[in-house]
């Protein structure tokens, strides 16, 4: 629990930093020559569940990975696919059922608003996707599915024209499709996460040379 709070505070700090950067209006936004196509980012993904639900009370979450591809559309707006996964071990089978491992896969799309401030790129995005918990039980596998929505502030730093690093937080809710009795509704109706990711960002196009 203490670890969750500590990580939550860290996530808020990163988020607030991203927002703070976003409010500064000192630099131009890809006004120079060249073409800004978008960017690809990928890196490890650290899920942190919170609230009274199966993910927080019954799973021991492990690290995963995240991949996003942002394609520039109109000014400052980007859209693109998003993929993430993480692993977990079942810590309370009496609460959530007798299986021992669960891998979550999320495939979706995002809309992002991004500002370029010096060597920093700050963005905030919302996403929706299909979340699958692939569960491993004795002698068999089965799945739980959900519709996931998330809010994703992200800050990245360009150390060259085409490469940078990013740090992001993700506030995510999975609307679970699991059919349960009313006694288990609180546990299986949904799952809440604050997920942290950092990694490499590849800027596509030539516009970043002039930012």
């Amino acid at each position, binding site marked *: 629990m203490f670890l969750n709070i500590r990580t939550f505070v860290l996530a808020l700090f990163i988020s607030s930093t991203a927002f703070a950067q976003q409010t500064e209006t000192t630099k131009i936004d890809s006004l120079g020559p060249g073409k800004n196509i978008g960017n690809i980012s990928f890196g490890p993904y650290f899920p942190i569940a919170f609230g009274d639900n199966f993910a927080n009370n019954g799973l021991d979450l492990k690290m995963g990975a995240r991949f996003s591809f942002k394609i520039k559309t109109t000014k400052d707006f980007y859209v693109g696919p998003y993929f993430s996964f993480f692993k977990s071990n079942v810590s309370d089978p*009496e609460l959530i059922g007798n299986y021992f491992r669960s891998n979550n896969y999320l495939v979706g799309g995002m809309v992002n608003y991004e500002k370029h401030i010096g060597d920093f790129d700050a963005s905030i995005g919302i996403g929706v996707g299909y979340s699958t918990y692939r569960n491993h*039980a004795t002698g068999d596998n089965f*799945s*739980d599915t959900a519709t996931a929505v998330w809010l994703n502030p992200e800050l990245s730093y360009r150390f060259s024209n085409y490469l940078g690093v990013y740090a992001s937080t993700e506030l995510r809710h999975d609307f679970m499709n699991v059919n*349960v009795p009313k*006694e288990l509704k609180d546990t299986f109706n949904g799952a809440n996460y604050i997920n942290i990711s950092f990694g490499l960002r590849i800027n596509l196009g030539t516009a970043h040379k002039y930012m």
Partner: protein
Amino acid sequence: MKRKHLFQYLFLGIAFVLQSCEVDIMNDKRVLVTGTIVDSNNNPISNISVRSETSREALLGETISDENGQFEFTSLMSKPPYNFYIAVNSKPFSEIWHYHYDTELIENIDYSAKAFYDESNNRNASTYHLGVIQLNKYAKLNLHINNIPGDTNTLEYKLNYDSAICRVNLNGNDLNRCEDDESEFRFLDSEYSDIHINVESQLGTTVTFIYKLNGEPEQTISIPLTNPENTYVFEY
């Protein structure tokens, strides 16, 4: 020709993968299993195992009863046509179904066991409230059937009794009612001299011995199980 074989192997490979992906646990489904375990004097029994399973031995959920005899756990659900079982004080039900006379399948041998089953294809139930589950003490009957030497009598017999692992239909009207266990009529001619039968049942219940001697009308003997070990000798 080679390409044709390639497609054939590819098709077989895909078919194999699809076959091996067959699952017997329902996706997006959980059920709740609750109940209270008591002995024949209505005293709660703690540390009794309760397990839910499929007919393919996948363990779907498990717990043990607390000091009040109560239990509650979340279970996965088997996908029809595979059956859903809840086994109380017994090892996996798939083994019990075929070998339910074997007391090695009872975990706490001080008590009998119960095996609830749902064979229906309708798995809409989301909660299995099993209520008060009474586990009688385990009892055994050693039945000796002796043919007195020199006689040419023939004997047909069968036994009715409550098994030590009693089966209960989850879709039945009464979850306290065990399905009767009975043996088929067995014919013994004059060549049989001494038969020993072990009946594993529950303390306080009665074993009914039904027999026909030399084709005469049926006779019935009720043998009460008043001790953990009981012996009855039948001579003809």
